[in-house]
Protein backbone atom coordinates (compact mmCIF):
# COMPACT_ATOMS: atom_id res chain seq x y z
CA UNK A 1 0.00 0.00 0.00
CA UNK A 2 2.04 2.90 -1.31
CA UNK A 3 0.08 5.67 0.33
CA UNK A 4 0.27 4.12 3.77
CA UNK A 5 4.02 4.35 4.38
CA UNK A 6 4.66 6.08 7.66
CA UNK A 7 7.63 8.43 7.80
CA UNK A 8 9.98 8.31 10.77
CA UNK A 9 8.93 10.43 13.74
CA UNK A 10 10.47 13.85 13.23
CA UNK A 11 13.32 14.89 15.47
CA UNK A 12 12.99 17.95 17.70
CA UNK A 13 14.66 20.14 15.10
CA UNK A 14 12.15 19.04 12.47
CA UNK A 15 9.29 19.79 14.82
CA UNK A 16 10.63 23.27 15.36
CA UNK A 17 10.82 23.70 11.60
CA UNK A 18 7.26 22.53 11.19
CA UNK A 19 6.25 24.98 13.84
CA UNK A 20 7.85 27.79 11.87
CA UNK A 21 6.18 26.61 8.69
CA UNK A 22 2.82 26.51 10.36
CA UNK A 23 3.31 30.05 11.65
CA UNK A 24 3.89 31.15 8.09
CA UNK A 25 7.35 32.44 8.98
CA UNK A 26 9.08 30.50 6.21
CA UNK A 27 8.13 32.03 2.88
CA UNK A 28 6.38 30.04 0.25
CA UNK A 29 5.41 27.16 2.47
CA UNK A 30 1.96 28.09 3.63
CA UNK A 31 1.31 31.74 2.92
CA UNK A 32 -2.19 33.18 2.89
CA UNK A 33 -3.86 30.96 5.50
CA UNK A 34 -1.31 31.66 8.17
CA UNK A 35 -1.24 35.39 7.41
CA UNK A 36 -4.98 35.47 7.88
CA UNK A 37 -4.66 33.53 11.14
CA UNK A 38 -2.17 36.09 12.41
CA UNK A 39 -4.40 38.99 11.42
CA UNK A 40 -7.42 37.44 13.14
CA UNK A 41 -5.45 36.74 16.32
CA UNK A 42 -4.07 40.29 16.32
CA UNK A 43 -7.61 41.67 16.17
CA UNK A 44 -8.79 39.27 18.89
CA UNK A 45 -5.94 40.37 21.14
CA UNK A 46 -6.95 44.00 20.69
CA UNK A 47 -10.71 43.57 21.10
CA UNK A 48 -11.90 40.10 21.97
CA UNK A 49 -15.61 40.63 21.39
CA UNK A 50 -15.17 42.89 18.36
CA UNK A 51 -12.71 40.47 16.75
CA UNK A 52 -14.73 37.37 17.50
CA UNK A 53 -17.11 37.80 14.58
CA UNK A 54 -14.05 37.70 12.30
CA UNK A 55 -13.00 34.43 13.89
CA UNK A 56 -16.45 32.87 13.45
CA UNK A 57 -16.67 34.04 9.84
CA UNK A 58 -13.18 32.84 8.94
CA UNK A 59 -13.39 29.42 10.63
CA UNK A 60 -17.10 28.65 10.88
CA UNK A 61 -16.72 26.41 7.82
CA UNK A 62 -13.86 24.40 9.36
CA UNK A 63 -15.50 24.06 12.78
CA UNK A 64 -18.89 23.15 11.32
CA UNK A 65 -17.41 20.63 8.88
CA UNK A 66 -15.46 18.95 11.67
CA UNK A 67 -18.64 18.92 13.78
CA UNK A 68 -20.68 17.37 10.95
CA UNK A 69 -18.14 15.00 9.40
CA UNK A 70 -15.40 14.15 11.86
CA UNK A 71 -17.32 14.19 15.12
CA UNK A 72 -20.89 13.27 14.29
CA UNK A 73 -23.28 13.41 17.22
CA UNK A 74 -27.02 13.17 17.39
CA UNK A 75 -27.46 16.89 17.97
CA UNK A 76 -27.49 19.48 15.22
CA UNK A 77 -23.98 20.12 13.84
CA UNK A 78 -24.51 23.90 13.92
CA UNK A 79 -25.46 23.69 17.60
CA UNK A 80 -22.24 21.81 18.26
CA UNK A 81 -20.19 24.28 16.20
CA UNK A 82 -21.77 27.25 18.03
CA UNK A 83 -21.07 25.57 21.36
CA UNK A 84 -17.43 25.06 20.32
CA UNK A 85 -17.04 28.76 19.48
CA UNK A 86 -18.54 29.71 22.86
CA UNK A 87 -16.02 27.43 24.59
CA UNK A 88 -13.28 29.08 22.56
CA UNK A 89 -14.51 32.51 23.67
CA UNK A 90 -14.58 31.49 27.34
CA UNK A 91 -11.01 30.21 27.06
CA UNK A 92 -9.84 33.37 25.27
CA UNK A 93 -11.28 35.52 28.07
CA UNK A 94 -8.70 33.97 30.36
CA UNK A 95 -5.75 34.30 27.96
CA UNK A 96 -3.50 37.35 27.96
CA UNK A 97 -2.84 39.25 24.76
CA UNK A 98 0.52 37.66 24.05
CA UNK A 99 -0.97 34.20 24.28
CA UNK A 100 -3.83 35.12 21.94
CA UNK A 101 -1.38 36.53 19.38
CA UNK A 102 0.67 33.31 19.49
CA UNK A 103 -2.32 31.04 19.05
CA UNK A 104 -2.31 28.35 16.36
CA UNK A 105 -5.93 29.14 15.92
CA UNK A 106 -7.19 26.49 13.47
CA UNK A 107 -5.87 23.36 15.21
CA UNK A 108 -6.87 24.95 18.52
CA UNK A 109 -10.48 25.37 17.34
CA UNK A 110 -10.52 21.84 15.92
CA UNK A 111 -9.39 20.46 19.29
CA UNK A 112 -12.19 22.37 21.00
CA UNK A 113 -14.93 21.11 18.68
CA UNK A 114 -13.68 17.53 19.00
CA UNK A 115 -13.75 17.81 22.80
CA UNK A 116 -17.20 19.38 22.69
CA UNK A 117 -18.52 16.51 20.59
CA UNK A 118 -16.98 13.97 22.96
CA UNK A 119 -18.80 15.62 25.86
CA UNK A 120 -22.04 15.84 23.89
CA UNK A 121 -21.86 12.14 23.07
CA UNK A 122 -21.10 11.26 26.68
CA UNK A 123 -24.07 13.35 27.85
CA UNK A 124 -26.31 11.84 25.18
CA UNK A 125 -25.33 8.33 26.27
CA UNK A 126 -26.59 9.16 29.76
CA UNK A 127 -29.96 10.29 28.48
CA UNK A 128 -32.36 8.06 26.61
CA UNK A 129 -32.96 9.37 23.09
CA UNK A 130 -36.42 10.50 22.13
CA UNK A 131 -35.86 12.26 18.79
CA UNK A 132 -34.79 10.63 15.53
CA UNK A 133 -31.21 11.15 14.36
CA UNK A 134 -30.73 14.61 12.91
CA UNK A 135 -30.24 14.68 9.15
CA UNK A 136 -26.71 15.47 7.99
CA UNK A 137 -25.83 18.74 6.32
CA UNK A 138 -25.46 18.53 2.57
CA UNK A 139 -23.79 21.26 0.57
CA UNK A 140 -26.29 22.56 -1.95
CA UNK A 141 -25.40 24.10 -5.26
CA UNK A 142 -28.21 26.22 -6.70
CA UNK A 143 -27.17 25.54 -10.32
CA UNK A 144 -28.02 21.84 -10.19
CA UNK A 145 -31.46 20.52 -10.97
CA UNK A 146 -33.40 18.32 -8.60
CA UNK A 147 -32.46 14.94 -10.07
CA UNK A 148 -28.77 15.77 -10.19
CA UNK A 149 -29.05 17.18 -6.73
CA UNK A 150 -30.58 13.99 -5.41
CA UNK A 151 -27.81 11.97 -7.03
CA UNK A 152 -25.13 14.22 -5.56
CA UNK A 153 -26.81 14.13 -2.17
CA UNK A 154 -26.82 10.33 -2.28
CA UNK A 155 -23.14 10.21 -3.17
CA UNK A 156 -22.31 12.68 -0.41
CA UNK A 157 -24.33 10.72 2.13
CA UNK A 158 -22.66 7.51 1.10
CA UNK A 159 -19.14 8.91 1.34
CA UNK A 160 -19.98 10.60 4.66
CA UNK A 161 -21.26 7.28 6.00
CA UNK A 162 -18.10 5.49 4.90
CA UNK A 163 -16.03 8.20 6.49
CA UNK A 164 -18.03 7.71 9.66
CA UNK A 165 -17.11 4.05 9.83
CA UNK A 166 -13.34 4.77 9.88
CA UNK A 167 -11.45 4.60 13.17
CA UNK A 168 -11.65 7.98 14.92
CA UNK A 169 -8.05 9.13 14.33
CA UNK A 170 -8.15 8.25 10.64
CA UNK A 171 -11.52 9.88 10.21
CA UNK A 172 -10.44 13.11 11.88
CA UNK A 173 -7.16 13.10 9.95
CA UNK A 174 -8.89 12.63 6.58
CA UNK A 175 -11.49 15.33 7.33
CA UNK A 176 -8.86 17.84 8.43
CA UNK A 177 -6.48 17.17 5.56
CA UNK A 178 -8.85 16.52 2.66
CA UNK A 179 -12.25 17.97 3.51
CA UNK A 180 -11.22 21.25 5.15
CA UNK A 181 -7.74 21.31 3.58
CA UNK A 182 -5.58 21.99 6.64
CA UNK A 183 -1.80 21.67 6.18
CA UNK A 184 -0.35 18.47 7.60
CA UNK A 185 1.43 20.42 10.36
CA UNK A 186 -1.94 21.62 11.69
CA UNK A 187 -3.51 18.16 11.33
CA UNK A 188 -0.69 16.89 13.54
CA UNK A 189 -1.28 19.65 16.11
CA UNK A 190 -5.01 18.93 16.23
CA UNK A 191 -4.41 15.19 16.66
CA UNK A 192 -1.63 15.82 19.19
CA UNK A 193 0.81 13.62 17.35
CA UNK A 194 3.98 14.02 15.22
CA UNK A 195 3.52 15.01 11.60
CA UNK A 196 4.64 11.61 10.33
CA UNK A 197 1.98 9.89 12.39
CA UNK A 198 -0.63 12.32 11.12
CA UNK A 199 0.43 11.62 7.54
CA UNK A 200 0.08 7.92 8.21
CA UNK A 201 -3.45 8.37 9.68
CA UNK A 202 -4.44 10.34 6.58
CA UNK A 203 -3.00 7.73 4.22
CA UNK A 204 -4.61 4.79 5.98
CA UNK A 205 -7.94 6.51 6.11
CA UNK A 206 -7.76 7.33 2.40
CA UNK A 207 -6.73 3.79 1.56
CA UNK A 208 -9.68 2.35 3.46
CA UNK A 209 -12.08 4.77 1.76
CA UNK A 210 -10.56 4.02 -1.63
CA UNK A 211 -11.35 0.33 -1.40
CA UNK A 212 -15.03 1.20 -1.26
CA UNK A 213 -14.85 4.28 -3.48
CA UNK A 214 -12.84 2.48 -6.19
CA UNK A 215 -15.73 0.15 -6.95
CA UNK A 216 -18.25 3.00 -6.97
CA UNK A 217 -15.84 5.13 -9.04
CA UNK A 218 -15.31 2.36 -11.63
CA UNK A 219 -19.04 2.34 -12.25
CA UNK A 220 -19.12 6.02 -12.93
CA UNK A 221 -15.78 6.86 -14.50
CA UNK A 222 -12.10 6.14 -14.50
CA UNK A 223 -10.52 6.40 -11.06
CA UNK A 224 -7.41 8.52 -10.76
CA UNK A 225 -4.11 6.72 -11.21
CA UNK A 226 -2.31 5.48 -8.16
CA UNK A 227 0.59 7.81 -8.76
CA UNK A 228 -1.73 10.78 -8.97
CA UNK A 229 -3.47 9.80 -5.78
CA UNK A 230 -0.18 9.43 -4.01
CA UNK A 231 0.82 12.90 -5.13
CA UNK A 232 -2.46 14.37 -3.89
CA UNK A 233 -2.33 12.68 -0.55
CA UNK A 234 1.23 13.91 0.03
CA UNK A 235 0.45 17.45 -1.10
Amino acid at each position, binding site marked *: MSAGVARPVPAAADRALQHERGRGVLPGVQGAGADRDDEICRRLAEDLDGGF*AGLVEAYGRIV*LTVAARAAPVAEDAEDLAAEAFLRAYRALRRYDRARIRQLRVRPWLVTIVLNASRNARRDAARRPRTDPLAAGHEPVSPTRDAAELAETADAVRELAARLGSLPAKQRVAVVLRHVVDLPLSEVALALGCPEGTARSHVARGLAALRVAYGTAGARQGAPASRAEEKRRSDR
Partner: protein
Amino acid sequence: MSRLVASSLEEALRGLEVRPSRGFVDRVIARFAPVAGPVGELYVAWTAIGISWVEVASPGGEAAFTARYRERFGRPIVRATRPLPGLAAAARSGRGRRLAYDLTGLAEFDVHVLEATLAIPVGEVRPYAWVATEIGRPRAVRAVGSALGRNPVPVLIPCHRVTRSDGTIGNYGGGPALKEALLRAERVNLDELAALASSGVHYVGSTTTKIVCLPSCRDVRRVAARHRRGFRDLAEAGSAGYRPCDRCRPGLRRSA
Protein backbone atom coordinates in the same frame (compact mmCIF):
# COMPACT_ATOMS: atom_id res chain seq x y z
CA MET B 1 -23.60 14.24 -15.86
CA SER B 2 -19.88 13.57 -15.66
CA ARG B 3 -19.30 16.79 -13.73
CA LEU B 4 -21.30 15.20 -10.96
CA VAL B 5 -18.91 12.33 -10.63
CA ALA B 6 -15.90 13.38 -8.65
CA SER B 7 -12.83 12.32 -10.61
CA SER B 8 -11.00 11.25 -7.49
CA LEU B 9 -11.65 10.33 -3.91
CA GLU B 10 -9.91 13.55 -2.80
CA GLU B 11 -12.24 15.64 -4.91
CA ALA B 12 -15.25 13.80 -3.53
CA LEU B 13 -13.99 14.47 -0.01
CA ARG B 14 -13.80 18.21 -0.75
CA GLY B 15 -17.51 17.95 -1.49
CA LEU B 16 -18.20 16.95 2.12
CA GLU B 17 -17.44 20.45 3.33
CA VAL B 18 -20.34 22.02 5.24
CA ARG B 19 -20.92 25.77 5.05
CA PRO B 20 -22.54 27.57 7.97
CA SER B 21 -25.97 28.99 7.36
CA ARG B 22 -26.32 32.74 6.97
CA GLY B 23 -27.26 33.43 10.57
CA PHE B 24 -24.60 31.23 12.12
CA VAL B 25 -22.55 34.07 13.58
CA ASP B 26 -25.64 35.22 15.52
CA ARG B 27 -25.79 31.84 17.21
CA VAL B 28 -22.45 32.70 18.80
CA ILE B 29 -22.40 36.47 19.25
CA ALA B 30 -25.07 38.40 21.18
CA ARG B 31 -26.11 41.95 20.24
CA PHE B 32 -27.27 44.81 22.40
CA ALA B 33 -28.80 48.21 21.91
CA PRO B 34 -29.96 51.08 24.11
CA VAL B 35 -33.72 51.51 23.80
CA ALA B 36 -36.11 54.13 25.15
CA GLY B 37 -38.26 52.44 27.80
CA PRO B 38 -41.41 53.60 29.60
CA VAL B 39 -39.23 55.10 32.35
CA GLY B 40 -35.81 56.15 31.06
CA GLU B 41 -33.45 54.14 28.88
CA LEU B 42 -32.98 50.37 28.80
CA TYR B 43 -30.06 48.27 27.62
CA VAL B 44 -31.38 45.19 25.84
CA ALA B 45 -29.28 42.17 24.76
CA TRP B 46 -30.42 39.38 22.46
CA THR B 47 -29.21 36.17 20.86
CA ALA B 48 -30.44 34.34 17.76
CA ILE B 49 -33.17 32.82 19.96
CA GLY B 50 -34.46 36.01 21.53
CA ILE B 51 -34.00 38.68 24.17
CA SER B 52 -31.84 37.39 27.00
CA TRP B 53 -30.92 40.31 29.27
CA VAL B 54 -32.37 43.72 30.09
CA GLU B 55 -31.08 46.39 32.44
CA VAL B 56 -32.30 49.86 33.23
CA ALA B 57 -29.53 52.18 32.02
CA SER B 58 -27.34 53.19 34.93
CA PRO B 59 -24.15 55.10 35.63
CA GLY B 60 -21.26 53.13 34.18
CA GLY B 61 -23.33 52.72 31.06
CA GLU B 62 -22.78 50.28 28.28
CA ALA B 63 -19.35 49.05 29.37
CA ALA B 64 -20.67 47.92 32.76
CA PHE B 65 -23.72 46.34 31.12
CA THR B 66 -21.68 44.32 28.61
CA ALA B 67 -19.20 43.31 31.31
CA ARG B 68 -22.03 41.92 33.44
CA TYR B 69 -23.48 40.18 30.39
CA ARG B 70 -20.18 38.45 29.54
CA GLU B 71 -19.67 37.44 33.15
CA ARG B 72 -23.12 35.87 33.34
CA PHE B 73 -23.42 34.26 29.92
CA GLY B 74 -19.80 33.73 28.79
CA ARG B 75 -20.79 34.92 25.35
CA PRO B 76 -19.35 37.70 23.19
CA ILE B 77 -21.60 40.73 22.89
CA VAL B 78 -21.30 43.65 20.49
CA ARG B 79 -23.46 46.67 19.83
CA ALA B 80 -26.13 45.89 17.26
CA THR B 81 -25.77 47.47 13.85
CA ARG B 82 -29.46 46.90 13.12
CA PRO B 83 -32.32 47.24 15.62
CA LEU B 84 -34.21 44.15 16.69
CA PRO B 85 -37.59 44.30 14.88
CA GLY B 86 -40.41 45.21 17.25
CA LEU B 87 -38.14 46.00 20.18
CA ALA B 88 -38.46 49.79 20.15
CA ALA B 89 -42.28 49.66 19.97
CA ALA B 90 -42.52 47.00 22.69
CA ALA B 91 -40.18 48.87 25.02
CA ARG B 92 -42.12 52.11 24.60
CA SER B 93 -45.59 50.58 24.99
CA GLY B 94 -44.76 47.90 27.57
CA ARG B 95 -46.19 45.19 25.31
CA GLY B 96 -43.45 42.58 25.40
CA ARG B 97 -45.64 39.67 24.36
CA ARG B 98 -44.81 39.81 20.67
CA LEU B 99 -41.07 39.51 21.23
CA ALA B 100 -39.08 36.27 21.44
CA TYR B 101 -37.04 35.56 24.58
CA ASP B 102 -33.99 33.40 25.19
CA LEU B 103 -34.45 32.00 28.69
CA THR B 104 -31.81 29.29 28.23
CA GLY B 105 -30.27 28.27 31.53
CA LEU B 106 -33.23 29.21 33.72
CA ALA B 107 -34.98 26.58 35.82
CA GLU B 108 -38.22 25.23 34.39
CA PHE B 109 -40.18 26.76 37.26
CA ASP B 110 -38.73 30.20 36.56
CA VAL B 111 -39.57 29.90 32.86
CA HIS B 112 -43.18 29.03 33.71
CA VAL B 113 -43.42 31.99 36.08
CA LEU B 114 -42.06 34.35 33.42
CA GLU B 115 -44.40 32.96 30.75
CA ALA B 116 -47.42 33.53 32.97
CA THR B 117 -46.16 37.02 33.84
CA LEU B 118 -45.71 37.88 30.16
CA ALA B 119 -49.48 37.48 29.73
CA ILE B 120 -50.33 40.29 32.18
CA PRO B 121 -51.64 43.22 30.10
CA VAL B 122 -50.30 46.75 30.24
CA GLY B 123 -51.95 48.76 33.00
CA GLU B 124 -53.07 45.76 35.06
CA VAL B 125 -51.55 44.01 38.06
CA ARG B 126 -51.80 40.49 39.44
CA PRO B 127 -51.03 39.10 42.90
CA TYR B 128 -48.10 36.71 43.38
CA ALA B 129 -50.64 34.04 44.27
CA TRP B 130 -52.32 34.54 40.88
CA VAL B 131 -49.05 33.64 39.06
CA ALA B 132 -48.64 30.61 41.31
CA THR B 133 -52.17 29.47 40.43
CA GLU B 134 -51.67 30.14 36.70
CA ILE B 135 -48.65 27.79 36.57
CA GLY B 136 -50.45 25.09 38.51
CA ARG B 137 -48.40 25.56 41.70
CA PRO B 138 -50.88 27.46 43.92
CA ARG B 139 -48.84 26.98 47.09
CA ALA B 140 -45.55 28.19 45.62
CA VAL B 141 -46.31 31.88 46.19
CA ARG B 142 -42.97 32.77 47.79
CA ALA B 143 -41.09 30.82 45.12
CA VAL B 144 -42.89 32.90 42.50
CA GLY B 145 -41.54 36.03 44.20
CA SER B 146 -38.01 34.63 44.10
CA ALA B 147 -38.33 33.62 40.46
CA LEU B 148 -39.56 37.10 39.52
CA GLY B 149 -36.61 38.56 41.43
CA ARG B 150 -34.34 36.61 39.08
CA ASN B 151 -36.11 37.84 35.93
CA PRO B 152 -33.28 38.44 33.40
CA VAL B 153 -35.52 40.53 31.12
CA PRO B 154 -37.39 42.98 33.40
CA VAL B 155 -39.75 45.63 31.97
CA LEU B 156 -40.24 43.56 28.77
CA ILE B 157 -41.41 40.54 30.78
CA PRO B 158 -43.40 42.69 33.19
CA CYS B 159 -42.55 41.35 36.64
CA HIS B 160 -43.38 44.87 37.88
CA ARG B 161 -47.05 44.00 37.23
CA VAL B 162 -47.02 41.36 39.95
CA THR B 163 -47.92 43.00 43.25
CA ARG B 164 -48.94 42.00 46.75
CA SER B 165 -52.59 41.19 47.35
CA ASP B 166 -52.60 43.53 50.41
CA GLY B 167 -52.48 46.46 47.97
CA THR B 168 -48.79 47.33 48.40
CA ILE B 169 -46.56 46.96 45.38
CA GLY B 170 -44.01 44.54 46.84
CA ASN B 171 -40.33 44.14 46.03
CA TYR B 172 -38.53 44.84 42.79
CA GLY B 173 -35.05 44.11 41.52
CA GLY B 174 -34.55 47.72 40.50
CA GLY B 175 -36.06 49.01 43.77
CA PRO B 176 -39.70 49.65 44.76
CA ALA B 177 -39.51 53.26 43.53
CA LEU B 178 -38.81 52.04 39.99
CA LYS B 179 -41.63 49.51 40.23
CA GLU B 180 -44.03 52.25 41.25
CA ALA B 181 -42.79 54.55 38.46
CA LEU B 182 -43.29 51.79 35.88
CA LEU B 183 -46.82 51.06 37.10
CA ARG B 184 -47.79 54.73 37.24
CA ALA B 185 -46.40 55.19 33.72
CA GLU B 186 -48.92 52.52 32.67
CA ARG B 187 -51.67 54.44 34.49
CA VAL B 188 -52.27 51.77 37.09
CA ASN B 189 -54.34 53.47 39.81
CA LEU B 190 -52.19 52.31 42.71
CA ASP B 191 -53.94 54.55 45.20
CA GLU B 192 -57.37 53.17 44.38
CA LEU B 193 -56.08 49.56 44.48
CA ALA B 194 -54.49 50.20 47.88
CA ALA B 195 -57.70 51.77 49.20
CA LEU B 196 -59.77 48.78 48.03
CA ALA B 197 -57.33 46.29 49.56
CA SER B 198 -57.24 48.09 52.91
CA SER B 199 -61.05 47.96 53.01
CA GLY B 200 -60.90 44.20 52.42
CA VAL B 201 -61.90 44.22 48.75
CA HIS B 202 -59.74 41.89 46.60
CA TYR B 203 -62.25 41.19 43.81
CA VAL B 204 -64.76 43.40 42.03
CA GLY B 205 -67.93 42.14 40.37
CA SER B 206 -70.46 43.70 38.05
CA THR B 207 -74.02 43.52 39.34
CA THR B 208 -75.32 43.53 35.73
CA THR B 209 -73.15 40.73 34.23
CA LYS B 210 -72.56 38.82 37.49
CA ILE B 211 -68.87 38.45 36.50
CA VAL B 212 -66.16 38.88 39.12
CA CYS B 213 -62.68 40.25 38.27
CA LEU B 214 -59.39 41.24 39.82
CA PRO B 215 -59.65 44.96 40.68
CA SER B 216 -57.25 46.14 37.94
CA CYS B 217 -58.88 44.11 35.14
CA ARG B 218 -59.71 46.35 32.21
CA ASP B 219 -63.27 44.99 32.23
CA VAL B 220 -63.80 46.47 35.70
CA ARG B 221 -62.86 49.90 34.40
CA ARG B 222 -65.86 49.76 32.07
CA VAL B 223 -68.29 48.93 34.87
CA ALA B 224 -70.10 52.01 36.16
CA ALA B 225 -69.38 52.73 39.80
CA ARG B 226 -72.97 52.12 40.82
CA HIS B 227 -72.85 48.58 39.32
CA ARG B 228 -69.64 47.52 41.08
CA ARG B 229 -69.69 45.17 44.02
CA GLY B 230 -66.60 44.30 46.04
CA PHE B 231 -65.76 40.84 47.44
CA ARG B 232 -63.21 39.68 49.99
CA ASP B 233 -62.67 36.33 48.27
CA LEU B 234 -63.95 34.19 45.42
CA ALA B 235 -66.05 31.98 47.65
CA GLU B 236 -68.07 34.99 48.71
CA ALA B 237 -68.51 36.01 45.05
CA GLY B 238 -69.41 32.45 44.06
CA SER B 239 -72.12 32.13 46.67
CA ALA B 240 -73.56 35.44 45.45
CA GLY B 241 -73.89 33.85 41.97
CA TYR B 242 -70.87 35.48 40.28
CA ARG B 243 -68.59 33.64 37.86
CA PRO B 244 -64.87 34.46 37.39
CA CYS B 245 -63.82 36.67 34.47
CA ASP B 246 -62.26 34.85 31.50
CA ARG B 247 -59.86 37.69 30.81
CA CYS B 248 -58.15 38.21 34.17
CA ARG B 249 -58.87 34.67 35.44
CA PRO B 250 -59.12 35.31 39.19
CA GLY B 251 -58.59 32.20 41.25
CA LEU B 252 -58.27 28.65 40.07
CA ARG B 253 -57.81 27.82 36.43
CA ARG B 254 -60.82 26.15 34.92
CA SER B 255 -58.93 22.96 34.14
CA ALA B 256 -57.49 22.63 37.65
